[in-house]
């Protein structure tokens, strides 16, 4: 048996109830062009000199013309829709533009400093007027200090999160959550001051790398707890119950079911917590000092870090003069720091994808 679907006869001149009048697809582009042209015209006519006012005039004209046109053709609901969409896109652009500007500016200023020597040499004996030198010493310091901080903070963070999600009940768990929240807001200099007082002043020690790592760890713990907690909460209750119902004790359920299921998320949260503190500067001023030569030992002697190198090269640390050379090196170090964080983020995503449960 064959069926044919009856086509509703299209009577000419009698529009369907379902199809309303719409602006053509090119409407936003045309209105945009018109708004820009009008704004330019006004700029010349009134003799404005800057571009800012013209830009905002164009934006305002765009919103007004598009919404008005839409209202007259499409009706009030679509006009509202156009207005809201335009505003949302504008907010998006307002949020992204500064970010892109900052990143591209850092890249433009930083890339000229990059060379093989820049990554393989320290600043040992390089004065502000001399060429050469590099960030090797600072890169070593940052990597070591951040690694030590991660080794201290991530286990504490993840175990605390496991406690809160799997075991935490009642007052104690509430108190832990509260203090974690408070710690999230602790200014980094306060963490630095704390370690400075107890470790350096308390033991009469000179600044050294690991002292900075402890302060970074203090800053990292709450971030790690919070994000790991969210990841563990995402593991469905079902899976825990399925495991209990097989006669598996709770701790083995956590170890073999909950953690593997959440692994992908836990890796992401760990690396993001690391990225979060990699550029931290304030506590390092107090705790790790700065050395222009290479110091591999984080447990003794001043150690350079990338943020501190930026500070040093801009002459703020010693109050010495700066030059194009030192400024270029500062931007180079800043760009390296940004790239480091970027790499951490990319690695986090790749690892997370690898660790994700598969269905195929």
């Amino acid at each position, binding site marked *: 048996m064959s069926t044919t679907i009856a086509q509703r006869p299209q009577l000419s001149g009698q529009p369907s109830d379902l199809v309303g009048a719409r602006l053509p697809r090119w409407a936003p582009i045309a209105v945009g062009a018109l708004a820009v042209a009008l704004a330019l015209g006004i700029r010349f006519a009134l003799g404005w000199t800057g571009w800012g006012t013209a830009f905002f005039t164009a934006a305002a004209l765009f919103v007004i013309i598009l919404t008005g046109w839409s209202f007259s053709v499409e009706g009030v609901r679509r006009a509202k829709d156009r207005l809201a969409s335009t505003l949302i896109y504008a907010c998006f652009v307002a949020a992204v533009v500064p970010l892109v500007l900052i990143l591209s500016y850092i890249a433009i200023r930083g890339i000229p400093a990059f060379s093989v020597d820049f990554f393989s040499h320290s600043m040992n004996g390089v004065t502000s007027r001399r060429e050469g030198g590099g960030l090797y010493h600072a890169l070593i310091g940052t990597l070591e200090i951040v690694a030590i901080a991660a080794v201290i903070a991530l286990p504490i963070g993840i175990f605390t999160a496991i406690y809160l999600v799997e075991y935490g009940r009642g007052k104690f768990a509430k108190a832990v959550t509260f203090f974690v929240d408070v710690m999230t807001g602790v200014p980094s200099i306060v963490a630095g001051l704390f370690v400075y007082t107890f470790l350096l002043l308390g033991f009469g020690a000179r600044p050294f790398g690991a002292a900075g790592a402890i302060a970074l760890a203090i800053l990292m713990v709450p971030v790690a707890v919070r994000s790991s907690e969210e990841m563990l909460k995402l593991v469905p209750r079902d899976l825990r119950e399925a495991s*209990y119902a*097989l006669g598996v004790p709770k701790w083995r359920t956590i170890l073999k079911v909950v953690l593997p299921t959440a692994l992908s998320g836990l890796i992401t949260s760990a690396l993001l917590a690391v990225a979060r503190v990699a550029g931290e500067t304030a506590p390092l001023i107090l705790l790790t000092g700065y050395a222009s030569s290479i110091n591999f030992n984080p447990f003794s002697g001043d150690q350079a870090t990338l943020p501190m190198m930026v500070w040093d090269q801009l002459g703020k640390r010693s109050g010495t003069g700066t030059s194009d050379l030192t400024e270029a090196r500062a931007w180079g170090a800043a760009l390296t720091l940004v790239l480091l964080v970027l790499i951490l983020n990319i690695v986090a995503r790749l690892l997370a994808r690898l660790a994700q*449960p598969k269905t*195929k």
Partner: protein
Amino acid sequence: MAKSIDVDNLNVYYGDFLAVEGASINIAPRTVTAFIGPSGCGKSTFLRTLNRMHEVIPGGRVEGKVLLDGEDLYGPGVDPVNVRRTVGMVFQKANPFPTMSIYDNVIAGYKIAGSRKNKREFDDIVERSLKGANLWEEVKSRLQRPGAGLSGGQQQRLCIARAIAVEPSVLLMDEPCSALDPISTLAIEDLISELKVNYTIVIVTHNMQQAARVSDRTAFFNLAGVGQPGRMIEYDETAKIFSNPTQKATEDYISGRFG
């Protein structure tokens, strides 16, 4: 081996809320018992007290006795982990472990619990359990594929294979077919009839034809109103419950569904 279950006047609580009041039941080994009744009357809650899964929920507690072959599950010193080894469970929503292959899902009860066996023994267990769950033919060529890649009905049978792999004495099933198509449902009903030879089975179902088809005895649960505790109204031979119930409420419920 299959064991009997005797529950005497059990009260089940969520915190202060009494969810099931005064439930008593005697279940013989190697039988299928069906729990029926409207939503929220405490069928799942009661079922979960039979392997101490109820207390996994914060605030969950019981008063009364549950005897497994005469031994009180809630007696002093009884380890809930051992109880759950003896009384297995299949859930409403199929929940294979997403990080594990089909093979590993079946032996999850051993693997996660850390019990050591060699590859041969595991191979045997996997084959036997999957055959027991009527899934072997469909998956034998892809045992190392993820369990989450199977269809809903296959996943549920994988969960049954996982539950019987640890050789429990009793199998609890909470609406195991409610998310499945009729073909998969039939496969699982057949499976229940086969498993009955070795296990004591308790199944919650909303499908009364299913209760009539698979069970030997049926318990009807009801609740007087919202916020009231659920009660077991009637418990009898399935044939009797469906043809000639003693209680008016049972008859109303059954005829309402059938009529």
